[in-house]
């Protein structure tokens, strides 16, 4: 019996301490403001510049452009309540007689969130065109092999206007939300 009393008293003392601590604790209101976030990063496998060219399958045939799929678009977003994000693309200049075309593949499995819907093939132009829409809060992972694979190629669009030489084109991806 004395042992039971000692145990009972010990338990009561611990409960009492816990209640005292709980009663003396403070309640604080945490106002966490989470801003909208959009971070885009393009990774290119191997080089920092994507090379493109055309070839001739045979005499009399139109030029064909070999596709280049060495670049990946990694994205992290936090969208506001009721908002959706869109990623658009534009180029710095057009190539006479050629269309620079883009295919954005659906996002790889890595990551989480609402990764949006990719558009069908685009002919890139000087004005922004949406290529991924209905984006929610998400992340895709970064680096080669993560995110949205970008495939570029050239297609003939007015052979008589095409001239040989080297031209550099800047391709810009921009995130916006509404």
């Amino acid at each position, binding site marked *: 019996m004395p042992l039971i009393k000692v145990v009972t008293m010990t338990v009561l003392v611990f409960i009492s301490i816990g209640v005292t601590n*709980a009663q003396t*604790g*403070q309640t*604080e209101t*945490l106002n*966490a*403001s*989470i*801003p*909208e*976030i*959009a*971070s*885009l*990063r*393009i990774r*290119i496998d191997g080089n*920092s*510049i*994507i*090379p*493109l*060219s*055309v070839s*001739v*399958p*045979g*005499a*009399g*045939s*139109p*030029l064909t452009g070999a596709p280049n799929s060495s*670049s990946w*678009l990694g994205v*992290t977003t936090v969208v506001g309540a009721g908002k959706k994000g869109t990623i658009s693309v534009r180029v710095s200049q057009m*190539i006479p*007689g*050629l269309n*620079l075309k883009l295919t954005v593949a659906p996002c790889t499995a890595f990551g989480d969130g609402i990764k949006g819907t990719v558009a069908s093939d685009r002919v890139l132009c000087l004005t922004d065109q949406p290529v991924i829409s209905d984006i929610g809060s998400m992340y895709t992972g970064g680096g080669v092999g993560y995110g949205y694979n970008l495939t*570029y190629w*050239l297609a003939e669009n*007015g*052979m*008589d*206007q*095409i*001239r*040989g*030489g*080297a*031209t*550099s*084109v*800047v*391709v*810009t*991806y*921009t*995130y*916006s939300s509404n």
Partner: protein
Amino acid sequence: MRSFTPAFLAACLLLLSATAAQAQDASWDSHLILIRLDNMASYRIERSQGKNDPGKHYCLRITSLVRPDETRMISVKGISPVPVRIYIEPSNPEPAGLGPMIREGGLALKPSDQVCIADLKSCFTSSEEKNTIIIRILPDLPGAPAAFAFCQVIYTLFTN
């Protein structure tokens, strides 16, 4: 139980907003594409094989890509035991970039080069026979026999 001090919370919020500001700066990204177009020309002349008068004419297929300051031309020369003329019919529709060519009246074949298609820029005809440039070589004498000796014709593509 007190888990966070006000100072800790303030530091967290500051870090979060700083990260957000940095992320907003990176809401776009760009990269460079280098487009390299090598000047080239690929052409082929072969006897017709289609259903329309097979073997009676030649088909010229050409794909050409020129630099801004370049033009090309195709010349013809040859030797024939009898006078012959060369007639060229452009494909229909005529490809843009294909310069002027000898038309009605044809061109009398000579041992020296004569331009038959001039001012050729970037163009392609077609790989299909029905849409290629047609070349006919016909006797230049009224009433000449249908069959005559071999004539050798050489086509050369020049780039200026």
